[in-house]
């Protein structure tokens, strides 16, 4: 079933690429945690509406900086509310406030061949622990959440010197998956991908340890594809898509 869906996704995307000059294309600036779950969502949207979608996945800060400096996106799907808020403040958003569309979950992940078979938050207290990957707390909402959780659990000081900082949450997963970092604070969306599922295991970081990762969206002002951008937001809020995202590690906003 999953394979069939994948083939279907690729077929729709291929159709988009082959006919892109003739068709309307929606450009989405998407937070890096969306990458693992978005391919089928985009394909379904294209199949339903005939609108092609091109998504760029980066840290929310990178995308906000790009948009504020005139990057030609139609829609910004961030991993928190503060970065789309900056775009609002710069007068470049259609909305007066970001629209929450999903809620992210932070997990602690390690490879199956690492020393941490019984992974727990206490693994972070292990003096023999060498490196922990987190996303940059200044640029990436998951990194900010990871730092908050470490501070809340009194783990920040023992772990501080062992932190390696990735540019976004996808690179954090890459650091951990390649084994270069022993543990990694990554998104549940990454942890649930087939590759990371088979290579390692994870525990959810206690929810009370960090402020919720509420992800906000805004449509970019004066975009030529404003209608399609709002269509996509409605599509994201529809019950089947919400359900599908939840299966991929992204909870409903409310």
């Amino acid at each position, binding site marked *: 079933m999953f394979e069939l869906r994948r083939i279907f996704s690729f077929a729709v995307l291929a159709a988009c690429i082959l006919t892109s000059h003739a068709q309307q294309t929606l450009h989405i600036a998407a937070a890096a945690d969306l990458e693992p779950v978005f391919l089928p969502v985009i394909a379904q949207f294209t199949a339903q509406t005939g609108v092609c979608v091109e998504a760029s996945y980066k840290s929310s*800060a990178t995308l906000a*900086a790009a948009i504020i400096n005139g990057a030609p996106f139609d829609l910004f799907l961030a991993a928190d509310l503060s970065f789309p808020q900056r775009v609002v403040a710069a007068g470049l958003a259609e909305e007066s406030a970001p629209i929450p569309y999903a809620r992210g979950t932070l997990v602690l992940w390690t490879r199956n061949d690492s020393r941490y078979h019984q992974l727990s938050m206490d693994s972070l207290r292990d003096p023999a622990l060498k490196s922990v990957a987190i996303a940059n707390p200044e640029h990436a909402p998951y990194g900010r959440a990871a730092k908050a959780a470490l501070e809340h659990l009194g783990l920040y000081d023992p772990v501080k010197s062992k932190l390696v*900082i990735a540019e976004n949450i996808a690179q954090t997963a890459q650091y951990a998956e390649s084994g270069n970092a022993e543990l990694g604070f990554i998104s549940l969306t990454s942890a649930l991908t087939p590759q990371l599922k088979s290579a390692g295991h994870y525990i959810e970081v206690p929810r009370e340890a960090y402020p919720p990762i509420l992800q906000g969206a805004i449509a970019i002002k004066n975009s030529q594809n404003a209608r399609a951008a709002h269509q996509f937001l409605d599509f994201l809020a529809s019950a089947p898509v919400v359900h599908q995202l939840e299966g991929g590690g992204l909870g409903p906003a409310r």
Partner: protein
Amino acid sequence: MDLQALSVTLRLAAVTTVILLLLAIPLSFWIVSTRSRLRAPIEAITTLPILLPPTVLGFYLLVLLGPRTALGRVWIHLTGHPLAFTFSGLVIGSIIYSLPFAVQPLVAGFSAVDVALIEQARLLGASRWRLLRSVLLPLSARSIGAAALLCFTHTVGEFGVVLMVGGDIPGATRTLSIAIYDQVQDFAYAAANRTALLLVVIAVASLAALYAWRGAYPGAHHEK
């Protein structure tokens, strides 16, 4: 100004330049003095980092030399940590990344030395080592200076490899180019501008020194 990042950058560039000269001088001497059929492929490999994007190098350093390969495990066994996220990892990345910038001027300098001088030295019974030390090196001082300066400034300007394998660790792997990237992401444009200006000044000063040292072009006239 991020003084820690400045210090990491200067240390990285200095260490890289010294190691690279020690490697590139014998390599370039071999290139200009050999008749081996391996010369062309070896020269091609040393030039490769100019053509390949830094992401290729970053990818291989991270994955091929990571803990999941035999080569990576040998490194971890020897040093106690993976190549990624360490200053020594950045040094190795920079050596590969800047290799052509050392080899190219050296090969050009060595091959510009008058063949008659080399022949005379050989007739007088000079060994290859003596030839390098007493003839080629003194006559190629400018090329060696150029190689050192280019390696240094090219390493100062390195970004892609550091972003991929550095891990942004203050005092170890956060270089000036990464600091600028971080500052731009934080919308700290004034700070980014100060750091960027410093890099521009370093680059212009080094290049001006290089061209001044090379002297006037043959055929140039004195201004009256």
